[in-house]
């Protein structure tokens, strides 16, 4: 079985593990199902346009495209369920089991453990957003020093939870309209259609502009970021995007003497005695 090295050195270059094979497979399923859902769904939202008619025809038209849409939706919902199980299992193994060993895991301890997770938004994210704005408005030349997951990545990660819940539940209501209206009022179908359609448009625009800009089209990665396939990020990008985490990993893996300077600082500079959470003073 392939081992996940945190830092891989190949031809003198360092590569940093970002996503395991399991996570990459989950992402590929997520990405492909979402693309299929957008392709088979958006022509219905924009049904009066020429491009929508052409696209829908290519996807099998009204007799086939809705079936493809529903199959993709079921796969995505199953993936969502799997991911929740995956999160719960990892949290149990990595947090609850040690807590149990050290005593009874109380609610406060578990809450603290949840908030400690690197993917959970925290105050540093707000500081990073403000620092980024300062940088973008030329008020400083220093870029925020990203943690393991930047605020952009947390946003990208959290968005599908909201999206899957909203679009998925409204889709289920519309799919099973007869059963749904046995329990819920009939007006729910009207609202489900609005939620499903408008939230899907928001999700699609968010993914195809914001997410794709950050991972594929920005000048650092153009024409395509490869981390979603290889699971590893180059040292250059680690420095640019996740400097705080980069320093932490380099130190932990015994490469403290090879740490590169933070983004925007051209002279070679190895940080000494940096404070926790702020490697460069």
């Amino acid at each position, binding site marked *: 079985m392939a081992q996940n090295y945190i830092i891989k050195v190949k031809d003198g270059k360092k590569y940093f593990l970002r996503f395991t094979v399991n996570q990459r497979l989950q992402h590929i399923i997520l990405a492909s199902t979402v693309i299929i859902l957008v392709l088979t769904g958006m022509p219905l939202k924009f049904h009066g346009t020429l491009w929508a008619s052409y696209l829908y025809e290519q996807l099998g038209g009204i007799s086939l495209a809705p079936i493809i849409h529903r199959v993709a939706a079921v796969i995505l919902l199953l993936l969502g369920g799997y991911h929740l199980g995956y999160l719960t299992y990892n949290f149990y193994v990595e947090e609850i089991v040690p807590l149990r060993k050290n005593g009874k895991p109380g609610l406060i301890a578990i809450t603290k453990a949840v908030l400690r997770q690197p993917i959970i938004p925290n105050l540093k994210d707000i500081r990073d957003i403000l620092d980024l704005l300062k940088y973008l*408005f*030329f008020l400083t030349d220093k870029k925020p020093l990203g943690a393991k997951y930047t605020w952009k990545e947390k946003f990208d990660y959290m968005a599908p939870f909201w999206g899957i819940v909203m679009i998925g539940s409204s889709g289920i209501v519309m799919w099973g309209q007869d059963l749904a209206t046995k329990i819920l009022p009939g007006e729910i179908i*009207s609202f489900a259609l609005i939620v499903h359609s408008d939230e899907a448009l928001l999700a699609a*625009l968010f993914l195809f502009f*914001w997410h794709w800009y950050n991972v594929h089209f920005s000048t650092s990665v153009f024409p395509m970021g490869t981390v979603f396939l290889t699971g590893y990020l180059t040292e250059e990008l680690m420095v640019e995007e996740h400097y705080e985490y980069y320093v932490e990993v380099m130190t932990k893996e015994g490469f403290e003497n090879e740490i590169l300077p933070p983004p925007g600082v051209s002279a070679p500079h190895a940080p000494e005695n940096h404070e926790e959470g702020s490697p460069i003073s």
Partner: protein
Amino acid sequence: MRCKKLLKYAAGISAFVWVAVLFIFCEARAADIGNCLLCHKYPGLSRIDENGDLKLLFINESVFNNSVHANVKCEGCHPDIKKIPHENVRKVDCMLECHIIEPSSEKKFSHKDVETFLSRSVHSKIDKEGKPKKYPEDYPDCKDCHDNPLYRPLSFFKKVRPGISEIVLGRCRVCHKKDEFIFRFYNHITTRLHAIRSPKNIAEVCAKCHEDPALVARHGLSRKAVSSYAETFHGKAANYLSEGIPDCLNCHVNIGESVHQMLSHKNPESITFKDNKIKSCRMIDCHPHASAKLAKYDVHPEFDKEKSPMEYYFTAFFLILTGGTLLPLAGIMFLDLGRRLFSRKKEDKE
């Protein structure tokens, strides 16, 4: 002498050929008793009428022969045309008795009953007291909704598919000797076993009046019926030419009645009356097991604060959410791009 003989032979042969050609030609035009196609077969035949509108007078014979009126001769609908050039041609009156004999009653066929149905429907030009309604010219005549529809035969001998089943024709030929009769009878029956128009086409016909803002306002109609239908899944599927999706008529015509008997949604006998709507939802091909609550679904939603307030505010919320999420992110994206390009220029200079 020899030359004369040859000329005689040539004249004889050519005469035979001409007679044969005429014979064939006459056979092909046998249905056109008045020889109307002598002129009307030309695609360019047209005129500008008194209103300045172009009237195309061309009749495509092969298309006409595949239409539901193929057996009706020109004179059947245009009895007033007696000479060429025609004078004072009257509009076609669909209530005329034509030469076809209706087989069950053995009487001359007429659409007269349709007029009776229509007079009691929501589309009647007269009210319950028999007085003309306001704006009678807005109410539809036959030709506002009907053209001369083409046959849409179906075969369901083994599988259901559009077209004619040759196997079935073979069975017909056992008893019926005239292929023309068999062909027409087959088309007549199977065309009526399914919708003659697609839901999209039906919606387009209704849209001619129900999407006319002036007409909608004049008659105080509550919704723009067709564009609102287009925003539902039914309408979207209809737009992609689904044949199995409900169209205007499926929900607005009482089950077992004709489209000409359509009633107002205020009439308690109408299927569109608030307590009856579920009956159309529960039709066997639609949602037979649906709860009565399904009929509460707004099948004519409009982005309008007065007409659909809940939908309006719900949609507005998502518009704000979309703008509120994407605009700041788009701003950051463009600023980021600008900063990157600036930094690169700076690096290049250094």
